[in-house]
């Protein structure tokens, strides 16, 4: 069985971003970039499925600027077999990525497509769902457990009320949530081996996909800042302040 995993290169989750004062966007200059944490979980899940004998090949794909090769190499070092970079310098929004992935899906014909549930930069949480719709596949989003059997995937999803378990017919799209697994560290020997694994570069044009941005960002600003708070010396003072000053408790 072939698994396709989609990964995104984003600002590292530890970085505190700065909003440009002219409203034109977030200042990304010289920031550390990494694989989106949810996508890393996706690669890890694919590798575990292969180690358990469910999958024979893992193809990893990333869309964007040439530097996306870095996250693809990391995925190869984690255990993916082959990488595809769909390269463009144009702004790629989720619908465009979903269309690119649909084209890759039709080309590669995997039984399972895994994406992170959301990218930590745009926090959109849309791409997996849209890919599933475009390709006519079932979707199991926010997965915290995944098991394959008899051409179906049983997925436990983290939902607002707790957990929901569904069964989806393969091929299917699964998006990962935080507790699906803990990704492995990449070892140096695997990083060296990864350099020899195939990395193919395509363009959206090669795939006949129109990646025109549909949404226009007019301005980007900082959120309203909270006023600085105070330290209280003890619980008694805290409760007194909450009762009499803030008036949020009785």
């Amino acid at each position: 069985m072939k698994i396709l995993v989609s990964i995104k290169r984003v600002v590292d989750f530890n970085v505190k971003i700065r909003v440009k004062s002219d409203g034109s966007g977030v200042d990304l200059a010289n920031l550390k970039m990494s694989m989106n944490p949810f996508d890393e979980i996706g690669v890890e899940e694919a590798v575990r499925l292969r180690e358990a004998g469910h999958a024979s090949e893992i193809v990893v794909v990333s869309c964007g600027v040439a530097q996306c090769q870095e996250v693809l190499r990391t995925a190869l070092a984690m255990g993916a077999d082959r990488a595809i970079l769909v390269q463009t310098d144009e702004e790629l929004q989720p619908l465009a990525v979903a269309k690119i992935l649909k084209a890759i899906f039709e080309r590669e014909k995997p039984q399972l497509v895994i994406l992170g549930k959301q990218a930590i930069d745009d926090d959109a949480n849309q791409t997996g769902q849209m890919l599933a719709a475009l390709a006519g596949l079932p979707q199991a989003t926010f997965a915290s457990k995944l098991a394959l059997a008899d051409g179906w995937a049983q997925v436990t999803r983290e939902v607002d009320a707790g957990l929901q378990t569904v069964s989806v017919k393969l091929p299917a799209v699964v998006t990962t949530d935080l507790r699906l697994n803990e990704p492995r560290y990449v070892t140096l020997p695997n990083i060296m081996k990864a350099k020899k694994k195939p990395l193919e570069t395509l363009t959206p044009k090669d795939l006949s996909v129109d990646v025109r941005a549909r949404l226009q960002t007019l301005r980007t600003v900082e959120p309203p800042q909270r006023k600085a708070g105070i330290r209280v010396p003890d619980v008694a003072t805290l409760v007194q302040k909450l009762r009499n000053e803030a008036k949020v408790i009785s």
Partner: protein
Amino acid sequence: MAALVLAEHDNRQLRSSTLNVVTAAGRMAGDVHLLVAGSGCAAVAAQAAQVAGVSKVLVADAPHLAQELSECVAEQLAALAAGYSHVAAPATSFGKDVLPRAAARHDCAPVSDIIAVEAPDTFARPIYAGNAIATVRCAEPIKFVTVRATSFDAAAIRSDAAAPIEAVAAVADPGLSRFVSREGAKLDRPELQGARVVVSGGRGLGSAENFKLLAQVADRLNAALGASRAAVDAGYAPNDWQVGQTGKIVAPQLYLAVGISGAIQHLAGMKDSKVIVAINKDPEAPIFQVADYGLVADLFEALPQLLKELG
């Protein structure tokens, strides 16, 4: 212009997040219709008809719509979307799962998690874990959006008139998925989303047993219980208590963060709370930067004292 709002419910009752979406939809379009897709959900439709600002309720009732299966609900929503200028759903796990799928069926780019409506085609939304707010213009023929409930007031329930309820044909089950089971404790306390007070614990609590101490404080304050990702990962709290960038977004009148360090991703879920209190033994914990009242103390001493002071 008319907006179609996808109602969230459990086939017996409307979920409160729906009411906040109705308010947001009212700012986008003159007419707001509510779609109730479910099974045996007539009671929900009746409630929906009493929501202020709703001029029509559409009901699709079929067994395969009982369990919020993505493919079924999204297909139902997509089938009805043509003719509306806006389609809105709450930014809950349900809405986030379904709405983008319906949007893609119409080749429309959706806008996620809006916190303000500036114009019928212009929305503000948080990015980078809420550390930046982007104002986005959407020129799509149908504006598909998910709405952050905490950013809009809930529409009122009227007792006088009721909107007309119209049954619509349920789309066929695509047969791509099956519901297996669900798990979630029914608590005798307010739900996280929409609670007036939230008491939240982090890894500092040290065990699931210790969360019971926190629960006593929550009981006394009639509060919902929340948790940081670290606490859930460690097994001290169930996943549906998680507050944060990828968990629940809450904005209560009072958020009490106990033993929570205040990572960027956690702040994303609670920094719009009206009053934030932090109790942590580390004076350098980032949570103190957003706290209105900060108490540097050992939570195992502070919590019993808090219970005593609250009376």
